[in-house]
């Protein structure tokens, strides 16, 4: 069924901007990205939007729809009432380039700060062997499409720009957890997580898990297990004593 939908789309750049009203045709089965494309084709040819796969796998079209961080291509129009005005804005946490496009390079900086996979020195590529049960926790985190919706919604940096330097954000703390839990990784990631990537800033309010389009249990399976490992290392004298007595590393 076709109807004329009401939209408010943020237009502007780093010098300023505002929400602009549009009325656009909506057809059955469409997603918000289809509407944005129709808007470009019919009314606003210079509207900037980043997109690629239209299948929820490239992580390009992250934005905020009615204030909720979502992928434009995975948000069906059928979840809205026909009478509803739908607001589409860029991700708030990152600097704006233009319209719905933000500069997400903060995330690439944070990615580079996580030391890469460190296999045992005596193991050559091609000799890696591991059991499925040992690697499946890390595999959940590999589903990440790097849409950065979790980074965008995390209040630690969303509401406090000044924390960006100290806090890697849920995506990259999850990367640290992925490597820490990897059966062949030899690097010590626990102290790094707390001291260099700001794990202590996370107050586990689970917004990262709520917005993840891949439904990764970021908080329960990555962040809390990392917090527990930090507690083992830094805040548990019984574990410390056990390590000393039994010469465990």
């Amino acid at each position, binding site marked *: 069924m076709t109807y004329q939908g009401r939209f408010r789309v*943020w237009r*502007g750049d*780093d010098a*300023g*901007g*505002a929400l602009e009203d549009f009325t656009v045709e909506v057809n059955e089965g469409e997603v918000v990205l289809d509407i944005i494309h129709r808007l470009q084709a019919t009314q606003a040819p210079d509207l900037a939007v980043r997109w690629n796969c239209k299948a929820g796998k490239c992580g390009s079209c992250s934005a*905020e729809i*009615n*204030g*909720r*961080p979502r992928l434009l291509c995975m948000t069906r129009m059928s979840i809205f009432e026909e009478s*509803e005005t739908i*607001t589409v*804005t*860029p991700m*708030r*946490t*990152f*600097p*704006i*380039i233009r319209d719905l496009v*933000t*500069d997400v390079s903060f995330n690439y900086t944070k990615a580079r700060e996580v030391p890469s996979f460190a296999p045992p020195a005596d193991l050559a590529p091609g000799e890696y062997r591991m*059991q499925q*049960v*040992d690697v499946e926790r890390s595999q959940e985190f590999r589903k990440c499409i790097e849409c950065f919706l979790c980074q965008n*919604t995390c*209040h*630690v940096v*969303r*509401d*406090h*720009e000044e*924390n960006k330097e100290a806090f890697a954000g849920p995506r990259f703390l999850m990367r640290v957890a992925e490597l820490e*839990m990897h*059966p062949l990784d030899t690097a010590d990631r626990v102290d790094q997580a707390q001291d260099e990537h*700001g794990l*202590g*800033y*996370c*107050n*586990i*309010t*689970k*917004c990262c898990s*709520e*917005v993840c389009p891949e439904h990764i249990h970021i908080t*329960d399976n990555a962040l*809390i*297990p990392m*917090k*527990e*490992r*930090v*507690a*083992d290392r*830094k*805040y*548990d004298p019984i574990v410390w004593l056990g390590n000393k007595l039994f010469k465990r590393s």
Partner: protein
Amino acid sequence: MARAEIAARTLRTDRWWLPPLTTFAGLLLISIYAAFRTFQGDYYWVDQYHYLTPMYSPCLTEECVPAASHFGQWFPALPGFLTPPVIIIPFLLGFRITCYYYRKAYYRAAWASPPACAVAEPHNKYTGETRFPLIAQNLHRYFFYAASVLLLINIYDAVLAFGTGLGLGNIILLVNVGLLGAYTLSCHSCRHIAGGRLKHFSKHPVRYWAWTQISKLNNRHMQLAWASLIFVCLTDLYVALVASGTISDLRFID
């Protein structure tokens, strides 16, 4: 470069304020009830059927009814308005306050940090759990150990009550320890201690199995947190009503 100029605190159009408000109201009501019962200092023991409310177990001070002190009276009578539960409440409260689920609940509901996802928090500064006092949340596992001991005592109390027959109170005490047990076992620290801290599950099949089972419970940690909290209060209320003679216990076998 600057962020997009959007003045509104949030553009969410759903009732995002409802979950934190409900959580706040629920926690407030339960806190008021628990405080009232703690400082009431009475109606915690049904002598006829050996029902002891979990809020007063173990009852360790000299003002306890002797029959209710299953593990002896280790401490002298407490002065002033203090009652026997003040000895155990810090551990039970500590377990709930440092619990990963309750942290989410009260950070959102009571401290608005954040009140809901993508809704700006009202604080100018945020340091999370990096410094005192919130860094003490890392002590959760110690409260887990203490709560586990108290759970075993609650189980002992519930089993002991079967010595007088079978009544509705026995069933309530049993369901209560079942829910408390499920909540305690589903704890994230428990999951970590059981097996989560291992790097190689394949070398520890028993701990891997335990971790797998606890992970299933852990998926329901929020539901178990609320169910066990509410049911503790209902159990206490039932014991209080029977102990005060307001209602009589429904007996099945005497």
